[in-house]
């Protein structure tokens, strides 16, 4: 089992790195939120992996902590989404930078056709 735990720990750290990278490079607030949620998943994966050490069932206290973590993160995410929608209604902005940078890559406007 330890081999697997090592694997999951590696995955958690890569996910954490990707999450931080995403938070730093994202301009669109939805992307920032995706990255923060990714980081949250990485932390929870780490918590579970740590709870699964040793023999027998994973530590129930860690599991309860993770359920709490999931609930807290959906609460915070929904608050952020509500703020984002309100922000767009008032200012027409979907990002927090003082000046909008020129859009890079393709627009997501054709989402309906996918």
């Amino acid at each position, binding site marked *: 089992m*330890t081999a*697997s735990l090592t*694997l*999951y*720990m590696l*995955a*958690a*750290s*890569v*996910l954490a*790195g990707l*999450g931080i990278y995403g938070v730093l*490079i*994202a301009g669109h607030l*939805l*992307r920032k939120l*995706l*990255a923060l*949620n*990714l980081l949250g998943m990485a932390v929870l994966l*780490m918590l*579970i992996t740590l*709870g*699964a050490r040793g023999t027998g*069932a*994973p530590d*129930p*206290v*860690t*599991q*309860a902590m993770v*359920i709490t973590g*999931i*609930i*807290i*993160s959906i*609460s*915070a995410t*929904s608050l952020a*989404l*509500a703020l*984002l*929608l*309100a922000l*767009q209604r008032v200012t*027409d902005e*979907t*990002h927090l*930078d003082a000046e*909008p*940078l020129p*859009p*890079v*890559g*393709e*627009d*997501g*406007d054709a*989402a309906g056709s*996918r």
Partner: protein
Amino acid sequence: MTAGTLLDFLIITGLVWLAWQVVAGRELFRAIIMFIALGLAMAVAWARLGAPDLALAEAAIGAGLTGAMLLATYRRLLEHNPAKGGQRYARSSRLALPVAVMSSLLVMLLGLTLVNIMPVEGEVAGQQAIQLMQAVPMENPVTGVLLLWRGYDTLLEMSALVAAWLALRILQPQDAATLPPLSSSIPLLQALLAAAVPIAVLVGGYLLHAGGKAPGGAFQAGAVLAGAGVLLGLTGSLQRSTRASRLLRAGVVLGLIVFSVLGLGQLAFGQPAFAIPGLWTIYLVEGALTVSIALTLLLLFLGSAGVRRPAP
């Protein structure tokens, strides 16, 4: 390499690839879809790690409801401003990559060190919970921790959800006209609803009941019920409303009320506060929590303080 390790290797490869797609995917819509897929893969990983309760919670809440909320928000952003809603702004930050790599390496170092050590001597909270299981009429230690021994945390967790709903009362569009139903009605969808909603209620009830001995519990059950509500919302059978009826508000705070009253009520019997006794009290608390969680999650998805039946 055993078959299990191979499977784990495949799962984490998937996790990392999906996470990369979430962060670096060119289109926002695609990134959101990948995030949902990541949540499901994460649920598989957690099941592999021996935590089916968490796998259920992650699949239903982390991937399912969060994903639905993200997609609905994406759509509403586009509806408001098709030109800008989905646009991608990338910031050029030269620090981003080194910072991310450094933190990833530090977390890796920390994690790999921790995997190979066990807690120092002294009783571990989790072991204490497993030992206490023998004295209570339940078999699932996670439910035990959530309700019996650290129920106070669960109560606070419920308040966090309620806090998010209270925020919606501030942030929702104040004008009812800007709250259209999410989708027009489609015949086949009605057929799906006719089947899916009763099944969701059944599954929710089962999960609630099973929480005592098998994986499940109030959070998973509430999420499944909220999922049924999401379907009803998507098909226009339930519509957003800026006002919450008294009954709805009572439903949202029901879990807090029942848990607080039963938890504090123990003091009247000379018991410690939150020492929830007996099976029936547990079911009462879990049932009330399920109702509140389901309603709150549904409202968080709808992004409005209330919900109503559509006008005929």
